[in-house]
């Protein structure tokens, strides 16, 4: 059931990122939906399954970009692996609803930022350009902050929805 929910959410994130991202603008930045899902996978899925979903989400993200496939896939795999290594299994697998909002925000922000910087730096390297740290970070921090803000709103909204009965069943089956 958990994987079915992730599959549905992956498709939803793909559709939103491909077609509806521009309708959400916070301070001239728009959020990315696939990294939100990636953060959720990193926190709520364990072991090889998490790596599998990271690869799928990364590949889909690559398909929306114009450059070579595999860049975001590689980034997503490594980022999820690092997050998995640094969050204890208990903290990760126990009720994801109990993970503090601050921790969620931190994970989401760092994952998005690292993913953006990694993929952008890789693209610059592949196209033979020099990497300048300042513009690279300044252009990605805004997107990561925007993604985190929207991600937290989605999370809070999701928690409220889970309190409603039918959603509770989905939540329980996910956990």
């Amino acid at each position, binding site marked *: 059931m958990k994987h079915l929910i992730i599959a549905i959410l992956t498709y939803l994130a793909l559709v939103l990122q491909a077609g509806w991202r521009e309708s959400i603008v916070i301070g001239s930045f728009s959020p990315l939906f696939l990294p939100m899902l990636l953060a959720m996978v990193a926190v709520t899925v364990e072991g090889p399954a998490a790596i599998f979903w990271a690869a799928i989400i990364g590949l889909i993200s690559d398909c929306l*970009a114009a450059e070579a496939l595999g860049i975001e896939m590689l980034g997503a795999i490594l980022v999820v692996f690092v997050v998995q290594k640094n969050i204890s299994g208990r903290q990760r697998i126990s009720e994801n609803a109990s993970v503090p909002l601050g921790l969620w925000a931190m994970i989401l922000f760092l994952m998005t930022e690292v993913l953006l910087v990694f993929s952008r730096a890789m*693209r610059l390297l592949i196209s033979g350009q020099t990497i300048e740290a300042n513009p690279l970070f300044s252009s990605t921090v805004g997107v990561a902050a925007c993604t985190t803000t929207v991600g937290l709103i989605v999370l809070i909204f999701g928690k409220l929805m889970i309190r409603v009965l039918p959603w509770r069943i989905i939540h329980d089956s996910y956990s």
Partner: protein
Amino acid sequence: MTTRSAKESLLSVFIAVAIAVGFLFLPQNAAIRIRTSVRDAILPGHRLVAVVEEKFVSLANRWIQKDTTVTDEKRLSEMHAKQELELRRLRLENARLQKRLASQNHLGVSPYRANDTAPLLVEEMIQARVFGEELSALWKTGWLLDKGSREGVGESDLVLRDEGPLLDQGADSRLETGFPVFAGRTVYGRILHVGKWTSSVQRVTDRGYRSHAQIVRKTGAGYIFGALGVLQGTGDSLCRLELVSSESPVKVGDEVYTASEAGRFPFPMYYGKIVRAQLSPGAAHWEIDVQPVIGKTPPEAVQILRRRINPLRNSSSGNTNMISNNTHIHSGTP
């Protein structure tokens, strides 16, 4: 995490990384196929979300009284845009009549009255919705990065990638690579890749876009068609008009249309205005920059031109085969 699961996890990371690295070296054709498949898969969800959004908006409009008062400024701006369009149409008509008059003056008028016949090829326009420019691609390809150096320094080359906006029409609508794409009377670009249900567009401003173009300029006798050239996308906001002979009169403010002589466009469609025209001493051609009408924000819908054999000419056999832009005629049922 137990040692066993840690090992499994590490092994899965190695395998996944190897696959990702493999994708990096995937041939271009295979990558395009995968990318197109994913984009095609988005379409049902995109339509579903569009329907939900439409329903939601109509429901919200019932409850919230919509402010229908249009400001004078907005109304004037709309009127101005309409008049600008009408003016452009009249200029073009003027140029066409001037051309016909010049031809008649040169060749004379036939003493015989010719019967008007149905043309062999007829054009038809297909409406396509711009399928949301993938925003992740936008910032990578520069649409968002171009907003300022703060957001885009160092990635200008990525602006020049040939992946453009996505349309919700593809091979199922018998689209083919190279079909021209319009936004109203303005050229938006051409079809670059065709998927089963979707296709991507190469905008006129994209690097790699090249098409015949013609200058329309004002003279004492009215508007006339001027020199022919080749309009080329630069990847920047301006296009370059090349191969315009130095002997042709060109000035800033002249308008650039598609060249009807090239045979691709039945009616001249608008590209934009000349914003820079420079002629170096001894040069054979002008250096011309054109400011295209299409902006960075894609329109909600575009029209794609395709041709087919006139059913009136072909009604006896019932054959209505499609003609590609390369005027390649597919064989049909006899």
